[in-house]
């Protein structure tokens, strides 16, 4: 399971990722306190759960072909998140840093592009909006 309704445990993820491999690249996405200049009070993440799980698996399968020496772990949070909470974490381990950075970057870029997860930003004035990255 890549999706989790409870807080992402980064220590547990690092323990699971730790290898005698040489390089470990960790990316953590964190809820920001503003969006496009407007203050944000929190974010609700919603997923098409079964498809999101399948899509992340498809991405990891294709990255395993592109980066055969890299092992990648993914966690994505769903539900209501506060400012500063981790929404996504990706750990890539490899013999050398170059491929660990590259695979980690590719994983987050592809996750953002195709995994069916949505976020609704809540503002301090009580309004909220679904985020549409295609409009930014």
């Amino acid at each position, binding site marked *: 399971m890549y999706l989790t309704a409870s807080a992402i445990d980064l220590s547990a993820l690092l323990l699971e990722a730790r290898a005698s491999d040489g390089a470990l690249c960790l990316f953590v*996405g964190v809820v920001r306190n503003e969006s496009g200049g407007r203050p944000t009070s929190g974010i609700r*993440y*919603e*997923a*098409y759960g*079964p*498809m*999101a799980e*399948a*899509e992340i698996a498809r991405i990891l399968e294709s990255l395993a072909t592109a980066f055969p020496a890299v092992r990648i772990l993914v966690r*994505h949070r769903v539900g209501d998140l506060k400012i500063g909470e981790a*929404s*996504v974490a990706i750990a890539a381990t490899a013999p050398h840093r170059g491929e660990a950075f590259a695979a980690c970057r590719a994983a*987050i870029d592809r*996750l*953002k*592009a*195709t*995994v*069916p*997860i*949505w*976020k*609704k930003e809540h503002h301090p004035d009580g309004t909220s909006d*679904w*985020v*549409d*990255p*295609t*409009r930014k």
Partner: protein
Amino acid sequence: MRIRILHFASFREASGRDEEQREVAERTPVGDLWKILAREVPLFARFATPPPAAVNREYVPPETVLQEGDEVAFLPPVAGG
């Protein structure tokens, strides 16, 4: 034939439902199903082209022909991460 449609995020709010069963003609392409929904949901009618569609939890092109029992979802712009 009968299919199941799931609605998420802004599409769920616009359609007022998260899930529905619907009868459609045999050999209906998924893009035509979007046109049927767009006649009922004003937000959907504003799309010049259908949004990305998934059948049975996998992205498919709009010409994909639906089968009895398919799980169909049209996906608003994704924003994970």
